[in-house]
């Protein structure tokens, strides 16, 4: 660690931790707005940080250097670019060593390429190994594609800047909430639960027959509602057959037992009338 570098722990200052990741490519340095990249290699030390932020990393810096020479990536003069690149990195080094790690790595790559180019080529050696220059070119090309893609995305029409979703006031709404669904099993479980709670689960038996009787009880009561006397016979329907008649009869008996209906016969063998007790 270089003790002389200004203390800039990554945790304290996000802008220094990854300067090349800064949200703003340019900033105000010593009250002066940086609107352009430096034209020559001299970077005022105070501006280095800002300068670094202008680049998205070593690949971006390399691309910048290549472009400044009006060169195609494929024609880069590794020697010259390396010289320039190293001078930038030296500046960084003097400033803030830890900021420049990724740049230093690139410097090493460049130095390796340069040294290889100086050596005579052995055709049949290292067939397997990729030419570091080709690898660098490929990385630069690949990076450049996405740098361009990012620019394209920036240009794409987008919401809140170029267009807005149209909306209008909805009409007054009658928001009927749909009815909940009920599964028969829920009903059964509810019943079992309530009966168990009532401690009736063991002792209470409801017979299948009783149910149809109870249903008929409801029907009879409904027929009687709001009326004085209803002829007993009118409660029966021949269409229902014998079973129906029996169920109705049992229902009426049950209603009488529960004191829900009153049964009236004014004379022997006369017509029987039924009346709801509470009406």
């Amino acid at each position, binding site marked *: 660690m270089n003790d002389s570098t200004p203390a800039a722990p990554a945790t304290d200052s996000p802008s220094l931790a990854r300067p090349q990741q800064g949200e703003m490519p340019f900033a105000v340095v010593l009250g002066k707005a940086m609107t352009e990249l430096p034209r020559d290699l001299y970077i005022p030390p105070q501006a280095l940080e800002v300068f670094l932020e202008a680049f998205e990393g070593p690949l971006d810096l390399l691309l910048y250097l290549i472009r400044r020479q009006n060169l195609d990536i494929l024609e880069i003069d590794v020697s010259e670019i390396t010289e320039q690149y190293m001078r930038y990195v030296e500046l960084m080094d003097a400033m803030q060593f830890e900021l420049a790690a990724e740049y230093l790595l690139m410097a090493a790559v460049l130095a390796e390429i340069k040294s290889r180019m100086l050596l005579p080529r052995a055709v049949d050696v290292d067939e397997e190994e990729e030419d570091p220059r080709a690898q660098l070119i490929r990385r630069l090309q690949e990076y450049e594609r996405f740098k361009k893609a990012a620019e394209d995305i920036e240009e794409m029409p987008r919401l809140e800047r170029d267009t*807005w*979703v*149209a*909306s*209008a*006031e*909805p*009409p*007054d*709404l*009658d*928001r*009927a*909430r*749909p*009815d*909940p*669904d*009920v*599964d*028969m*099993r*829920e*009903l*059964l*479980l*509810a*019943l*079992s*639960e*309530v*009966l168990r*709670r*009532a401690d*009736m689960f063991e002792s209470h*038996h*409801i017979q*299948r027959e009783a*149910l*149809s009787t*109870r*249903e008929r*009880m*409801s*029907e009879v*009561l*409904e027929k*009687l*509602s709001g009326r004085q006397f209803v002829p007993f016979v009118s409660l029966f329907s021949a269409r229902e057959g014998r079973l129906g008649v029996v169920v109705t009869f049992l229902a009426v008996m049950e209603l009488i037992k529960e*004191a*829900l209906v009153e049964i009236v016969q004014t004379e022997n063998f006369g017509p029987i009338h039924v009346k*709801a*007790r*509470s*009406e």
Partner: protein
Amino acid sequence: MSESASMLVQIIEGALLAAGRALTVAQLGELFEEAERPSAVEIREALAVVSERCEDRGFELCEVASGFRFQVRQSLSPWVARLWQERPQKYSRALLETLALIAYRQPITRGEIEEIRGVAVSSNIIKTLHERDWIRVVGHRDVPGRPAMYATTRQFLDYFNLKNLDQLPALAEIRDLETLNAELGFSEPLAAANDGADQTISADLPSAAASTEDASSDAGDSDSADAADPRAPGGAQ
């Protein structure tokens, strides 16, 4: 209409729709650089054109207290309202218990339900069941207060795909359901049933009765201690 007037109309339309709220004539004017700002009269004229162009469309220009805004036509409310249709909620356990008691013990009064459940039945539950047309008052018991007696309705039977109350699963089946419940590892039977219904059974009602039978026979098969034929009560299908 001149070109600039047509442009003004478009800008007003765009701004009102982008804002999604009412804008005053002054606010519309502020969309323009001072040098190009149309007069209030021009803006009002343009608003009149905007309004005209809404004829026969799904929306109209309205002037409200806070300015002008586009509104979707009231006549479209039946369709548009479906955009906000809320998901149905689940019924409370209290409601289901009340409904079960009315179904199985009808005709039954509220007092009788409360006696069995051990807690008061809220008026909301009775109201909800009435509104759903699942219960009806079939008479009044001749005791002090003449309480209403409740029974289930045809709509109730229709909803559960039953021809008559006989087709309600017999209480004996509940034991199997309890087994099923335990098998499914639900600690709280009813809450579990609510959740479980969605997952285990496709909740579509026509098949509900059949699934219950399946459930009961499954439970029976998996539990040999269950001596009684679990299919017997299900035979009412």
